[in-house]
């Protein structure tokens, strides 16, 4: 589904991504872990065209998308959420999800001003279904800026799903959540978000990652240091050394 080949990105002297080659198969939930600053979010940013790659190439489902503009990548069926939460604070919860449909390739430009009644009603119903599924239905008319953190994360997820993406990039979807909220988010990803699409998840929460993901990749200094099934990766000596620390190895 997503393939990168020797993908690199440097900021000044800092090598955020160094010749990273990855392949994510269709339909899998792929975990991306590593220390802060190891290049995980940079990978999402390069894939979605926020930063151009310094070198290397990216393919999405067989089509090369290296250095396309963000909107072009997104229109090819990618959606993402953000580590530091980005929502349209001055819009309502409903409008935030509705907004994700503005750029759908199936929406004709004319419909931005003069919607077809039936199609628009169907799309609005879809927004409501997504709010229902993510447990935000009763807050649809609230201004999104006033939501508590876990709800804002769910709103980001709902917004991403409104694009019905083939590839869903989730950047710390459970960041700052309590264990209980984390479990709820994991269930939401497993039952609502993942079916029928490919997911990549960045997380620091190992319980969640190992329960959710079929395969993991560990980054350090922009390089891949391990890849494979969670069990194997999380006991890999390099991973213990660079990310989990020595103690975990002894425990």
């Amino acid at each position, binding site marked *: 589904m997503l393939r990168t080949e020797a993908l690199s990105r440097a900021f000044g*002297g800092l090598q955020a991504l160094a010749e990273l080659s990855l392949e994510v198969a269709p339909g899998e939930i792929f975990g991306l872990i590593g*220390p*802060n*600053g190891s290049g995980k979010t940079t990978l999402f940013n390069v894939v979605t065209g926020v930063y151009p790659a310094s070198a290397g190439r990216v393919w999405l489902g067989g089509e090369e998308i290296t250095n396309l503009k963000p909107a072009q990548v997104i229109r090819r069926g990618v959606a993402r959420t953000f580590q530091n939460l980005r929502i349209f604070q001055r819009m309502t919860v409903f409008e935030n999800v509705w907004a994700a449909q503005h750029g759908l390739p199936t929406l004709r430009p004319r419909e931005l001003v003069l919607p077809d009644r039936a199609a628009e009603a169907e799309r609005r119903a879809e927004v409501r279904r997504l709010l229902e599924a993510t447990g935000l239905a009763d807050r649809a008319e609230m201004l999104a800026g006033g939501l508590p*953190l876990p709800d804002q994360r769910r709103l980001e997820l709902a917004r991403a799903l409104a694009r019905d993406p083939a590839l869903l990039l989730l950047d*710390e979807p459970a*960041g*700052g*959540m*309590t*264990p209980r909220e984390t479990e709820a988010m994991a269930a939401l990803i497993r039952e609502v978000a993942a079916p029928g699409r490919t997911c990549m998840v960045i997380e*620091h929460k*190992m*319980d969640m990652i*190992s*329960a959710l993901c079929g395969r993991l990749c560990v980054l*350090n*200094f922009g390089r891949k240091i391990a890849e494979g099934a*969670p*069990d194997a990766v*999380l*006991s890999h000596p390099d991973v213990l*050394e*660079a990310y*989990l*620390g*020595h*103690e*975990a190895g002894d*425990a």
Partner: protein
Amino acid sequence: MLEVQDVVTAYGKIEALKGVTLRVGEGQITCLLGPNGAGKTTLMLTITGILKPRRGSVRFHDKDITGQAPGGIVRAGIALVPENRLVFPEMTVAENLRAGAYSRTGSAASEIANDMEAMYNRFPRLRERSTQMAGTLSGGEQQMLSVARALMARPKLLLMDEPSLGLAPMIVEEIFQIVRDLHKDGTSIFLVEQNAHMALQVAHHFYLLEQGRVTFDGTPGEMAEDEVIQRAYLGTRQTA
């Protein structure tokens, strides 16, 4: 030496700290653990006087310092090594150190020069780079500069906000060695960390902050035995 009593700090309507009570003992390394958004940085900002608590008090050496201006708190003897290092990128290393001594209005220039010399002795790499712009330093060197800059205020208590964040494991080892050395030289340290494994090796006491509340208070031994903390902050293998 530092006593935080029932502190509530809020941004607008949202309370980031919901009544936090903890103490940092003289000559000890105290560690605060907690997830992102739990309020750790808010607590640091409250102690350093940048944020005013809505309720509660902060006492340092039995004196109430709640709501004092940041400058006064630095002068009282609390310095912060901020999260993400925050060096002044377009100032030289030497100027960064001088900025660290900004609040020492009473000290003579020669005294400050002596302290800078002491910093260069402690961190020889900073001496090599003393006329370089701080922004050109590597992450690890910037972290050292950030620590040295805080020490230039001659603090009795050093607050360190996630000093290992985004740093390579080897550098993290180095930073923790510095923490041990500073402690040996008599500085009390209040350490905010996510790297619980490293913290376990140095800290004398642990607090866990979750959603603005202290949810654990105990020694390293007690912490290592607590199963919930095990799973959340130490263990990965139990569930893996």
